[in-house]
């Protein structure tokens, strides 16, 4: 089943009268259950591409269909709602809510979705267990290591039952042990629960684990390798 279908996607920034093609006619299909890394040098359009498929930015032209919905036609408030129900985010700098505990951070997104309390609680515990943070539910982010914070972020991204998880350089701030650990958890979630992961990364360890590697350069796909 196609999760993401991108057709002739372009994004042009008008930088003082010089047109910059951040993305230039990208076509791509991502199927459910893929574990995909998007790589490329700085300025290759990785971040722009991620922002587009994450519904954080609108394309200049082209179509982005997620689970059959063309998100390039949604208004910004419709997009917020779409993101809430369809996309899980993991950011480079973890970006947890600092005043909430690990448990509350995970439950927060389900509260935004107005899920019943029992469901929130059971799913939160289930997810924290899955990312190996049992016993740390009540710690605030500043009491957790980077690796632990990123695992909370993964649990949060999954809490909303999204169609896919978008991770923007998730291991950039982690040491190798934490990276290893995080990748294992994500791989297991992918394998056992068929969760679709898309990363942008520079990290060779992530690239190594990925089962599909898409390389971008100058706003175009220059290679798309399935292992």
């Amino acid at each position, binding site marked *: 089943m196609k999760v993401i279908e991108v057709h002739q996607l372009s994004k042009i920034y008008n930088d003082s009268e010089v047109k910059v093609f951040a993305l230039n006619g990208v076509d791509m299909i991502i199927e459910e259950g893929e574990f995909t890394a998007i790589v490329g040098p700085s300025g290759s359009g990785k971040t722009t591409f991620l*922002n587009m498929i994450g519904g954080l930015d609108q394309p200049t032209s082209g179509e982005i269909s997620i689970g059959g919905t063309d998100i390039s036609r949604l208004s910004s408030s419709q997009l917020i709602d779409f993101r809430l129900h369809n996309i899980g985010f993991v950011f480079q700098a973890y970006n947890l809510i600092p005043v909430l505990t690990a448990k509350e951070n995970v439950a927060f997104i389900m509260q*935004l979705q107005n899920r019943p309390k029992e469901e929130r609680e059971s799913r939160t515990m289930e997810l924290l267990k899955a990312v190996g943070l049992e016993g740390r539910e009540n710690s605030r982010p500043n009491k957790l290591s980077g690796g632990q914070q990123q695992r909370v972020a993964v649990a949060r991204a999954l809490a909303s039952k999204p169609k896919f998880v978008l991770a923007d350089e998730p291991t950039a701030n982690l040491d190798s042990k934490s990276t290893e650990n995080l990748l294992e958890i994500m791989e297991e979630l992918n394998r056992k629960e068929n969760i679709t992961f898309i990363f942008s990364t520079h990290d060779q360890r992530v690239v190594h684990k990925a089962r599909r590697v898409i390389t971008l350069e100058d706003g175009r796909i220059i290679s798309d390798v399935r292992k």
Partner: protein
Amino acid sequence: MMLIAVAWRNIWRNKTRSLVILISVCLGLAAGIFNMAFYYGMVDQRIETVIKTEASHIQVHHPSYLANPEKVFKIDNAEQIAEQIEAIPGVKSVSKRIMLNTMIQSPTAGSGVRIMGIDPEKEKAVTNLYTKVIEGNYLDSGKRNPILIGKKLAEKLKVKLKSKVVITLQDMEGNMTAASFRVEGIYESANTTFDEMNVFVRSNDIAHVLLLDEKSAHEIAVLLNTNDQMLQVASLIAAKLPKLEVKNWRQIMPEMNLIESSLDITMFIFIIIILLALLFGIINTMLMAVLERAKELGMLMAIGMTKRKIFTMILLETVLLSLFGGLLGMGVGWMLNIYFSIYGIDISVWSEAYRSMGFDTMIYTKLSFGTSMQIALMIFATGIIAAIYPAMKALKLNPADALRIDM
């Protein structure tokens, strides 16, 4: 509920900054409340003095007397009229007075004064003059021709207790006459001008000198059970006594009316200034709080928090902060208010001038609960207004831009 909890915790992220704004809201408000309580107390005491010592609630005169206080404009059979008034519901007590503007002389000096001929017992029920006697006795000792004079006048005339003073006057038949009185008591009210201008004698003593019928009077002073009934009772009296002039203390002393209404305006302006200062303080703080959290707010938008919820969260943070500070300030202000309403503040050190204006120099603060509630509402409104700009600023953040900051 979740938003309130998050907003409350967000407030305490930067403890120092939140405490600074909290303390400034608290102090600003406590100062505002105390200041209001102080001035309301001061004016209230002045009104109290006006009613209890000087004017009573309502006064009845001959229609020409107030414009031209001549002894001929008297109320005949005043005693009977006083009884009639006393029977009106809401009236607490009534006192009739013979009044005369004339000269008083001591061996060393003279002064123009207003002589008030009173029935000492009846007057006790209307004014609290008898409580203001600081030396000697009130007019009830039974001695011959006693006179009660103010401290200020006593100083001016250089007289003491038992000194003799002479009053020169023209009697009802037009003959010049003089009578000597002995200083029986010296009083001191909150109003030094009043003390200098008014002397009190027994009405029958002065009626005798004036050759005036004892039953007549120039003024009938009426004390009511409460100030609230004043207009109603005044119109009842006026209806019963169509040939006489009935006035309440606000009409007799229009300057008090002015002070009262200008106080309201002054206090309103004062509170507005305090709130404006707080407003900008809060805006500044919340703007900083929003801008330094740009990334986090962007993240919240990215993961699907609606703009309305983000707006509400910032609004709640601001309102909670200002409301918390405001309530603390109300608490502190009220404690000061209650303390000084019991123990008073002595301002005589700074200004004796107040006394000549009739203001007591011992101020007991006074503030109504209703006024405090109004202030609380105004703080609440200030909090909301202060929140709008920072919250709008938060909405302008673009989730992608906000996140890119550290990408």
